[in-house]
């Protein structure tokens, strides 16, 4: 499927699709045609600094996130806050790939799982005959490296095909990895997985206590968020978005489409790997269940629920997901959680393909038009 169609598929509103895609290509065309765009416009368009309103928003959000654990109970800090940031970080890798690269990969949880399994196998776990007990300063970089390399390989394999095929191939890869860890006992310890995988004690702090873990996850999540925000404004990120919108045109402009896509998989893989290490520490174990189909799909649900248009989407989606997971069981039977999450996902895909962010943008656009007649362009609310 061509990327233009993909845009249309994700956004029947069409307005934003045209608006979002066009400037980037126009900009690239201009740049490569050597036409003299006024330097001021170029500088404003590609400036990586945030305007003051956005800076204020980010500052307020960060302040709220820092204050949050001091007012919430330890249970909420760890179970809701920590889990939400960790899952959001893994889902962020999918948002980056899907929202900016136009490639929906279902194997991001697999990448996170590879990082988690590497931590458990190379480091310390409850299964002494498998774990190698390497020191943790070596284990974590190794895990990130191995997972990123695997993500690059997955990317290299799946960018050979396009659009809708990507979903099928990454799903096949993800499920194949699930069956591998499920059936293999010599390395992955089969069904039971590896238990008692704790984060190392650094500075005498137990990093699995609610407060330290929350801030660890918050730091990683904020770094991931900032990195994605930065990345999509670099020449690489701009080119990637151009490829999303029209790969043929970008190819004609002299860009190596395959290399950009594989690089996007690598970058996303690194984010997922960091999230995967955090996730294994959060759960203190890794089992085949955590890389099974339901988790592959859950990650997609989180990303789509929040919205693929902005890197804050996955965290929003993760918040809704974790809240549902934690509190929906009070309203209905615990066993029926999948029905609830499936229904919510279905409703979002059917009625608001841009997720909660899209819903918010629509609401805001309606309010501004009501307040100021014509109002400001809706595009500015939809793009980061």
């Amino acid at each position: 499927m061509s990327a233009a169609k993909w845009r249309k598929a994700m956004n029947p509103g069409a307005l934003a699709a045209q608006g979002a895609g066009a400037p980037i290509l126009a900009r690239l065309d201009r740049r490569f045609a050597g036409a003299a765009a006024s330097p001021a416009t170029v500088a404003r368009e590609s400036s990586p600094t945030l305007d003051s309103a956005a800076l204020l928003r980010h500052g307020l959000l960060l302040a709220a996130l820092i204050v949050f654990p001091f007012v919430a109970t330890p249970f909420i800090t760890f179970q809701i806050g920590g889990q939400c940031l960790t899952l959001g970080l893994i889902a962020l890798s999918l948002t980056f790939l899907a929202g900016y690269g136009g490639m929906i990969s279902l194997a991001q949880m697999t990448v996170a799982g590879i990082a988690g399994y590497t931590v458990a196998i190379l480091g310390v776990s409850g299964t002494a005959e498998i774990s190698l007990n390497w020191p943790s300063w070596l284990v974590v970089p190794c895990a990130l490296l191995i997972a990123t390399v695997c993500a690059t390989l997955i990317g290299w394999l799946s960018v050979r095909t396009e659009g809708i095929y990507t979903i099928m191939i990454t799903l096949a890869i993800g499920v194949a990895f699930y069956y591998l860890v499920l059936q293999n006992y010599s390395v992955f310890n089969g069904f039971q997985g590896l238990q008692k995988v704790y984060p190392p004690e650094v500075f005498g702090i137990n990093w699995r206590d609610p407060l330290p873990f929350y801030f660890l996850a918050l730091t990683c999540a904020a770094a991931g968020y900032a990195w994605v925000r930065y990345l999509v404004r670099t020449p690489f990120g701009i080119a990637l978005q151009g490829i999303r919108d029209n790969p043929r045109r970008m190819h004609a402009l002299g860009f190596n489409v395959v290399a950009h896509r594989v690089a996007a998989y690598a970058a996303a893989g690194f984010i997922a790997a960091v999230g995967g290490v955090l996730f294994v520490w959060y759960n203190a174990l890794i089992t085949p269940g955590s890389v099974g189909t339901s988790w592959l799909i859950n990650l997609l649900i989180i990303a789509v629920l929040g919205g693929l248009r902005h890197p804050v989407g996955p965290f929003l989606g993760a918040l809704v997901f974790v809240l549902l997971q934690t509190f929906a069981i009070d309203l209905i039977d615990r066993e029926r959680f999948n029905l609830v999450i499936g229904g919510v996902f279905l409703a979002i895909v059917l009625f608001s393909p841009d997720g909660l962010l899209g819903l918010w943008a629509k609401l805001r656009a309606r309010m501004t038009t009501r307040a100021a007649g014509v109002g400001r362009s809706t595009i500015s609310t939809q793009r980061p």
Partner: protein
Amino acid sequence: MSKRASVAGWVLLALLLVALSVWGIADNARLFLVTVLNGLTLASLYFIVASGFTLVFGLMRNVNLAHGSLYLLGGYIGYVVAEATGWWVLALAAGFLGAAVVGLLLQVVILRHMQGQELRQTLVTIGIAIVIADILLWIFTGEVHQMEAPSWLKGPLRGIPIINAYSQYRMSLLVLGVVIGVALWLFLNRTRVGMMIRAGVDDRAMLAAAGVNVNLVFAVTFAIGAGLAGLGGVIGAVELSMVPGEDTRLLLASLIVVIVGGMGSVVGAAIGAAILGLAETFGLAYAPTYSVVFTFVILVVVLAFRPRGILGRA
């Protein structure tokens, strides 16, 4: 790749396979032949399920990720009918019809309204797969349901050279797979609706312009595709068993079969199913812990050399 190099590659592959088979027969002829038969019977189940998947994909460019759920649904419906009436053939028909009706509703009520938005359709089918799986879990619980083979197919088939006896049911499955394959081929190549479907696969817009009611063709195709999944479910309920999670397994099998065979091609689905079925059973017989890796290696090799599948069009 040049033509000569590709021919050399195929010859090399064939030689390797022949060498491995010779070794297998010399080592333990009975095990080898039983594994071949097991592989082919599994392949015929995969073919029945995946042919529906590839048919729907070829015509509508719609990756129906609820296909595995339709398989499981058909299996459970067949189970209930067989329990109530005791007729296996009736169960087969009920499984086909039940899944076909659900598939038809899916197409008419939801997917039709997002024609051309492939990704959104796929996401919707994911949501539906989750919901169906959970409802089935609710009704039938997580217990293993096993259906009995009909009495006239029970017991072994005796008197076969070397392997002596082989399950009659499994043998009949092989026949059924061939029958369905031939029926599908006749339907697609000899009937008017089949011609419309093939024309739609090649050029949807032109078919509509020729005055054919494309929506009707879509609905029929989707119903047949879903029905084949349901039919596979009833067959699989005897050969394998029904537990939550089987839907994913068959979905994965269908995905790999159509990726390897080529999307939208029924013959490709047959080739892909044969490869996957044989690879899985040989993996299980000769290297149990790594059987999934075989499947994966096949996927990687095919994608590396033929990104559109063995019979896929570039």
